[in-house]
């Protein structure tokens, strides 16, 4: 076999993953991805092995629920044929491999730096001298924004090339948020330390990243955390989606100067995040999810409380939504603004909500389900226009859907108090991979144990890694004044990308 197929959240010996020569590796993986839009690259990255680098490619197959793994060992001075030449979605993965290890590619559009990590292969590359795309013309001008933005948000630099008010091209430079998270996973081997690192990958996606991390850690340790933990994680994931989507709807109203919507959606987020605090002591869900454990079992009392919160929320949410979706002044800003076509989404490998708003059905909850999702029979919400309006609609619909899921869960609260102690030392030489549908989309955590059962390699992929390109494409030919709503309609993560 040219690849081995595993199920989501499972571990296997690294030795059982087929090791191919690069030519075969290239052919196998590109042909897998070319054939079917349901097969997409979940991760493609390098694992250092002394002087050489082991490339690992994981193709998620949405139809079968499998993940196809293959590896290839290459040397750092080798020049490889770029997969991005065939499958553009691999573009950023290859840039990352180039930046981390110095491996070069032929046929790659432009091997630009991704995030200027502290351990980059070429230390002479400086974040202050990023090679922006530019156009020489008397007609055009450039607008630079950031890294520090006008609001209270994370840093990143946007460079627009404009013709008058119209955006011809946007390039997004990231890396300012780089904290060296992946390296810290190896320096800090404690179970608690590692899950805290996972909590901080993107502090607005705590449930998503801690669930993925816990599943990887448990797969490597061969421990099942039990149905109570699975229930809590599913509940946390859906509540997180509701809370953030609600906040995003407030922000979108702010960006079209609709004060009432901004205030009402903004305050509606509060009871949801406060429920996280009632449940686990922190408004963002930090401390709630732990590998091997159900730290804060979901009690029937919490269920009664949540049920009341949702009833009150739903009334006000529906009233406000009905108003917003019938408001011509808001709709005229949303409709046909920031359009991304399905073809473009497919070619850049968009995932999650950003893919579903443009007709691409990608949702780990239905394609690679785990936790309580199989019993919820989740059906992805899909919109087709790819504009800001679709992204507002999908939030409203996903809030309704998550509320429905949560209410279903509330009828099945498990009566278990099991708790397992997770061993710090795991089986040696094993690889584990977890895909979790966070509110932004597909989160991928991939870990490898060393000869002594310690973590030897940890790789994180936030959905934003794919989706930043969707924003850059969305704003083309739009007025620069529409950039804020385009940006907010995606609400991508800087720290999740920069790691």
């Amino acid at each position, binding site marked *: 076999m040219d690849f081995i197929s595993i199920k989501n959240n499972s571990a296997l010996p690294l030795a059982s993953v087929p090791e191919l020569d690069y030519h075969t590796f290239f052919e196998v993986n590109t042909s897998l991805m070319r054939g079917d839009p349901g097969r997409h690259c979940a991760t493609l990255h390098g694992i250092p092995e002394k002087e050489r680098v082991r490339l690992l490619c994981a193709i998620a197959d949405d139809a079968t629920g499998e993940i196809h793994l293959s590896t290839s060992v290459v040397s750092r001075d080798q020049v490889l044929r770029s997969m991005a030449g065939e499958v553009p979605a691999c573009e950023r993965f290859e840039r990352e491999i180039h930046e981390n290890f110095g491996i070069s590619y032929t046929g790659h559009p432009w091997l630009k730096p991704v995030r200027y990590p502290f351990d980059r292969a070429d230390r002479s590359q400086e974040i202050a001298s990023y090679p922006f795309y530019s156009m020489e013309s008397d007609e055009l001008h450039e607008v630079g924004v950031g890294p520090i933005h006008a609001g209270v948000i994370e840093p990143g630099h946007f460079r627009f090339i404009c013709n008058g008010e119209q955006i011809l091209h946007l390039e997004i430079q990231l890396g300012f948020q780089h904290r060296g998270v992946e*390296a*810290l996973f190896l320096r800090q081997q404690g179970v608690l330390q590692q899950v805290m690192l996972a909590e901080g990958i993107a502090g607005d996606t705590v449930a998503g990243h801690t669930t993925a991390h816990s599943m990887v850690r448990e797969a490597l340790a061969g421990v099942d955390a039990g149905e109570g933990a699975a229930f809590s994680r599913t509940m946390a994931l859906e509540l997180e989606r509701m809370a953030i989507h609600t906040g995003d709807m407030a922000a979108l109203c702010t960006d079209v100067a609709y004060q009432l919507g901004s*205030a009402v959606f903004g305050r509606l987020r509060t009871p949801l995040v406060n429920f996280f605090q009632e449940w686990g002591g922190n408004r963002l869900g930090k401390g709630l999810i732990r590998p091997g454990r159900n730290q804060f079992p979901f009690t029937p009392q919490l269920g009664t409380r949540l049920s009341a919160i949702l009833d009150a929320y739903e009334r006000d949410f529906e009233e406000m939504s009905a108003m917003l979706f019938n408001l011509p002044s808001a709709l005229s800003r949303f409709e046909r603004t920031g359009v991304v076509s399905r073809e473009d989404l497919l070619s850049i490998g968009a995932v999650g909500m950003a893919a579903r708003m443009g007709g691409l059905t990608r949702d780990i909850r239905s394609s690679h389900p785990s936790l309580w999702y199989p019993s919820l029979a989740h059906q992805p919400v899909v919109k087709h226009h790819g504009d800001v309006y679709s992204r507002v609609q999908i939030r409203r619909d996903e809030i309704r859907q998550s509320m429905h899921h949560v209410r279903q869960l509330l009828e099945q609260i498990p009566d278990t108090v099991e708790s397992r102690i997770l061993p710090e030392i795991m089986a040696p030489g094993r690889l584990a991979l977890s895909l979790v549908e966070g509110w932004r989309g597909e989160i991928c955590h991939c870990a490898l144990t060393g000869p002594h059962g310690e973590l030897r390699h940890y790789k994180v992929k936030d959905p934003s890694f794919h989706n930043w390109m969707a924003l850059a494409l969305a704003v083309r030919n739009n007025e620069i004044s529409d950039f804020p709503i385009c940006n907010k309609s995606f609400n991508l993560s800087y720290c999740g990308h920069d790691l």
Partner: protein
Amino acid sequence: MIFDNLKILFHQGKQYIPDVTTVEVPGIFRGRPVISREPVDGEQLAALCPTGALTASPVTIDLGKCTFCGECAHRFPEKVRFTKDYHLSTNVRERLVIREGEDRPVEVDPTQVRREVHRLLGRSLKLRQVSAAGDNSAEWELNAANNVQFDMSRFGIEFVASPRHADGVVITGPISENMAEPLQICYEAVPEPKIVVLAGTDAISGGIYAGSPALNRNFTERYAPDLYIAGNPPHPLTVINGLLDLTRKKG
């Protein structure tokens, strides 16, 4: 249309928190911890802490390093208890250290506040926020501090877009090497007199990222912070009370 608007307004009821200094927060909020005199194996307790915020003998917790994960209280409930006290801001770094057998609030020491802070910033405080590798949780809570419930702007405290309009910077995140220069440029653009506020565990000590080679924390050594706001992330009430205490509490 106008009646629908009024109906929505009416349905919201009263949302703002009348007294942000005394309101009780819901649930099991992990705020200021209290350490009892109960004898325990201090070494075992300290070894639990993911960031080394706990010392063994005597048992202390440094809230500047604490990530409020609650593991110590979970395993040693008779020794450590997290209260719902959200007053966790101070201008004196040592005050963030909670000691065994003590149950006293974390406070701003008004005698150590620069005079111009009271004189010039006591009624109106404009701040430039800089996220320097923050994980977007502290940023999130700073934004929440200005929603209709917490409504920080009623006190004349606001976040502004330009450092030229600001009276200081609020830093979140452990400060990455890649953000060190932009932060410095932003700070220099703020006119004097100006304050430096570190919001959240990551900003105060580096938190779980402390010691990472991807950080550059020289800024915190170069400029003495005027306020430390503890929390992971800090609760909006911690933020508001901290800023009010700093600028309005007279010695």
